[in-house]
């Protein structure tokens, strides 16, 4: 595929199995495509012909997984601090207090991931990705299998946070309403 955009937020949509998650994995560096180039911002993350392949840990992708993937042996606060300790030192572009505030997770800090509800898990996952001070954001169906009230809640949180982040956001969903509200451009993989 051939896609380029100047937009701040890009929606990726398409039916199941179309490769939306695969695309995100390629951008994050978890999978390497057979051929092609990946450029985000001004950084070339991957170029098969030139032999460039930036490893996962250096891509600074803030990846919010569809299954959240919180670390079960760390409390919420430690989960958040995980990425912070690894990449957050360089400049304070991210206002952590604001993120905690908007996502409403202050009360969850001392909890274990196993004891969180679905909605709480998603919010912590988003915060964890942001706390690592990423250069771009990848969200894989963050509202999937949430009831309408929770989904609406998190949707407005993302809406609120989006503009202040100043990093590109790639948002995968098969719900056109979410795409419409959150993103400027749409890439349809159908």
């Amino acid at each position, binding site marked *: 595929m051939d896609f380029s955009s100047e937009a701040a937020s890009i929606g990726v949509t398409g039916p199941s199995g179309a490769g939306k998650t695969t695309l995100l994995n390629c951008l*994050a560096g978890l999978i390497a495509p057979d051929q092609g180039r990946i450029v985000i911002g001004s950084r070339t993350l991957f170029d098969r012909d030139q032999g460039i392949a930036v490893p996962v840990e250096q*891509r600074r992708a803030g990846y919010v997984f569809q299954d959240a993937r919180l*670390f*079960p*042996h760390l409390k919420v606060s430690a989960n958040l601090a*995980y990425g912070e300790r690894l990449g957050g030192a360089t400049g304070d572009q991210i206002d952590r207090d604001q993120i905690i505030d908007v996502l409403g997770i202050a009360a969850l800090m001392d909890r*274990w991931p196993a004891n969180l509800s679905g909605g709480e898990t998603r919010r912590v996952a988003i915060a964890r990705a942001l706390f*690592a001070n990423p250069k771009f954001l990848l969200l894989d169906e963050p509202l999937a299998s949430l009831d309408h009230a929770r989904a609406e809640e998190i949707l407005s949180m993302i809406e609120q946070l989006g503009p202040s982040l100043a990093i590109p956001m790639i948002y995968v969903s098969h719900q056109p309403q979410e795409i419409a509200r959150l993103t400027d451009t749409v890439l349809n993989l159908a």
Partner: protein
Amino acid sequence: MISALEWSIILLSLKVSLVAVAVTLPAAYALAWVLARRRFSGHSLLDALVHLPLVVPPVVTGWLLLILLGRTGPVGALLDRWFGITLVFHWTGAALAAAVMALPLMVRAMRLSIDAVDRRLVAAAQTLGASRWHAFRTITLPLTLPGILAGAVLGFTRSLGEFGATITFAANIPGETRTLPLAIYTGLQVPGGEAAVTRLAIISILLSLAALMVSEWLIRRNTNGRAHLV
């Protein structure tokens, strides 16, 4: 209550078993990790070799150790010539025999817990900036801690009870290789030695019970709050 001789036997057994487990722990974890996470052409062969001491009669294992590591064996002769190390007749030989017999149990326990760790968690850690090694240290290793503990305790109790390979390889030297099981066996040879043997047998059972209870406590302590570790 416990005679000086009995104390020395107990301490020797503890020393041999602790050293056996401590030395084998990293090797067992490495083997468990390779078997759990990597696919390669010699995979089943390695798996079978690791399990060999579990299925082969202990005396045969001891005999194989003797062929390789006895003073005239290929490895043993080198150890003797280069480092002046002999394992036969020494507690280090007893520890090695115990280690070899305990290895398969330790690998199995650790492999189970490594298998249970969701690899997608490692991927998540990497996206947050962790190198493979850092992700291993902070995610995989802590999550497999119960398996490590279970493996260590299994290995320890197996070492405490190890007999066939020890007596065949390291021989039955009082104070050096005459561990608790060997002392009990030797005691049975002497007419009227049943009384002494009974005491040693009770001590042996109590030691194993203690080890199991300590392990339960350790495992419970380390899985607090991690309700879904299975």
